[in-house]
C-alpha cells in the first residue's frame, strides 16, 4: 500500500548558529502520529521550524501533502498546519483568549469557533485573563485548543505537555485521540514524556546530534529487545547471535539483553537453559540502545508492513 505523505524531507541541511543540522531525510505518512524523540538540543524543534518554513534550509527539498514550494510556505498550505510552539508567541501576550482567537480565525478558513470554546471550557482556561498573565499550564492549554480550532490536517506539537498538570495532560491525550478518530489528521509531536509516546504514537523518530536516525513503528521498537533471566552454565550462552549483553545475577543465574526472543527462546530451551523471567525494556533504555547504534538496520526505516 502506498500511503500519502503529509511531509517529506529530502537531504535537508542547515548550518545553524550553534551546530549544523542534517542531512535530514524523513517521510511522515498522512494520518499517523509521529513522535520525535531525542536528547535536548538534538534538533527536534528545528525540524518543526523547517516544516513551517520559519527556518529555511541551505539545501535539500521539502514537500507538504505532495506539494513542494520554493521560498515561503504558501498560505493555502500553511492554513492546513496547526502549531503549538515550545515558547508561545510574544505578539499575543497582551491579548485575552477571545482576542487572540479572533486574530487567528482570520488566517484559518476552516476555523472552528465552537470547537475552540468547547476545548477552552473543558481545559478550564480563564476567559478574561490576558495570555501573559496566565500560568504556564493555562497558556499551554489555550495554545493547544487554538491549534485544534483551525482544524488542521497537520498538527505540530512541540513538547505540548510542558507545564500541564496530570489532569490537564490526560484531557489533552483524550482530546487528541478524539480528533484522530473524527477525521484524518497527522500529528508530529516532540516529547520527553514516555507515557505520551506510549499513548499516542504510531511511529517513533529518533533525532540525535542534528540527524534523523530512523523512523520505527512503535510496537516493533518496543518489542525489539527483552531482558531475560536464565539459570544455566555460562558455556550454554556462548555463540548465540541474539544475545547482546550477559550479566551475572547470582550463582548460575544470568541476566541477558536479547533480541528476537521468540526464536532465541527455542534455542535456549533446547540447550537445557531454564528461563526464569522475561521483561520488556523501558522506552528510555530502548532509545539509549538505539543511540548506541544497536537497532537492527532492517527495521529502521520500514513503514506500513513488516
Amino acid at each position: 500500500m502506498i500511503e500519502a505523505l503529509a511531509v517529506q524531507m529530502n537531504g535537508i541541511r542547515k548550518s545553524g548558529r550553534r551546530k549544523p543540522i542534517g542531512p535530514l531525510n524523513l517521510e511522515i505518512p498522512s494520518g499517523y502520529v509521529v513522535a520525535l524523540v531525542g536528547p535536548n538540543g538534538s534538533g527536534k524543534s528545528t525540524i518543526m521550524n523547517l516544516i513551517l518554513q520559519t527556518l529555511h534550509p541551505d539545501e535539500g527539498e521539502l514537500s507538504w501533502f505532495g506539494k513542494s514550494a520554493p521560498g515561503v510556505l504558501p498560505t493555502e498550505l500553511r492554513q492546513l498546519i496547526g502549531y503549538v510552539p515550545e515558547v508561545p508567541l510574544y505578539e499575543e501576550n497582551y491579548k485575552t483568549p477571545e482576542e487572540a482567537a479572533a486574530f487567528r480565525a482570520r488566517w484559518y478558513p476552516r476555523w472552528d469557533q465552537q470547537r475552540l470554546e468547547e476545548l477552552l471550557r473543558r481545559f478550564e482556561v480563564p476567559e478574561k485573563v490576558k495570555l501573559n498573565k496566565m500560568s504556564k499550564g493555562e497558556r499551554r492549554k489555550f495554545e493547544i485548543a487554538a491549534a485544534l480550532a483551525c482544524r488542521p490536517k497537520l498538527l505540530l506539537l512541540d513538547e505540548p505537555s510542558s507545564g500541564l498538570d496530570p489532569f490537564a495532560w490526560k484531557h489533552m491525550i483524550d482530546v487528541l485521540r478524539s480528533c484522530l478518530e473524527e477525521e484524518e489528521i497527522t500529528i508530529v509531536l516532540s516529547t520527553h514524556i514516555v507515557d505520551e509516546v506510549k499513548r499516542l504514537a504510531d511511529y517513533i523518530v529518533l533525532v540525535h546530534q542534528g540527524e534523523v536516525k530512523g523512523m520505527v513503528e512503535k510496537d516493533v521498537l518496543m518489542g525489539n529487545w527483552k531482558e531475560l533471566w536464565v539459570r544455566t552454565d555460562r558455556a550454554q550462552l556462548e555463540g548465540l547471535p541474539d544475545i547482546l549483553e550477559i550479566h551475572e545475577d547470582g550463582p548460575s543465574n544470568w541476566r541477558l539483553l536479547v533480541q528476537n526472543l521468540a526464536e532465541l527462546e527455542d534455542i535456549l530451551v533446547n540447550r537445557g537453559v531454564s528461563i526464569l523471567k522475561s521483561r520488556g525494556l523501558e522506552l528510555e533504555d530502548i532509545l539509549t540502545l538505539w543511540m548506541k547504534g544497536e537497532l537492527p538496520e532492517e527495521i529502521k526505516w520500514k513503514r506500513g508492513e513488516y
Partner: protein
Amino acid sequence: MWIPIQINENSAEPLYHQIKTQLRSLIVSEQIEEGTLLPSIREFAGSLNCSVITIRRVYQDLENEGFLRTRQGTGTFVAKVDQGERSEYRRTVVQEAVEAAVDAGLAVQYGEDELKELFLQILKKKYHSNQKEADS
C-alpha cells in the same frame, strides 16, 4: 464496544500476535457474537496503547482468515464462524494445552503411567465436581 484483550509487555510473543490470537479466540468461542461491530482501528489502538499499524494488520489478517469482514464506510464486523472451523479450533486449543502439560511432565522426568494416572485423576475430579454443580 470494549474488547477484553490483555497485553503482556514482558512476553516473548510479539504484540501483534498477542492481539490477533486473543481476538480470534474471542470470536471463535462466541464471546463476541457474529455481526458485532468492532471498534475503529484508531479507537482500538488507543484502548490498547498500541499503534494503528498493529491493529490494521490484525484486522486484515483476521479478515483474510474469514473471521471478520469490512464494509466500506461502516466498519469491521465479526463474520459467521463456520461450525467445522469452530470444532477444529476447539480441538487445537485443547490439544495445545494437553501438549504443554505433557511437556511439563517430561521436563521433570515424569513416567508415562504416572502421568496417565494423574491425568485421569484430574479428569475425574474436574468433570465430576462440575457435574455436581450442574445438578444442584
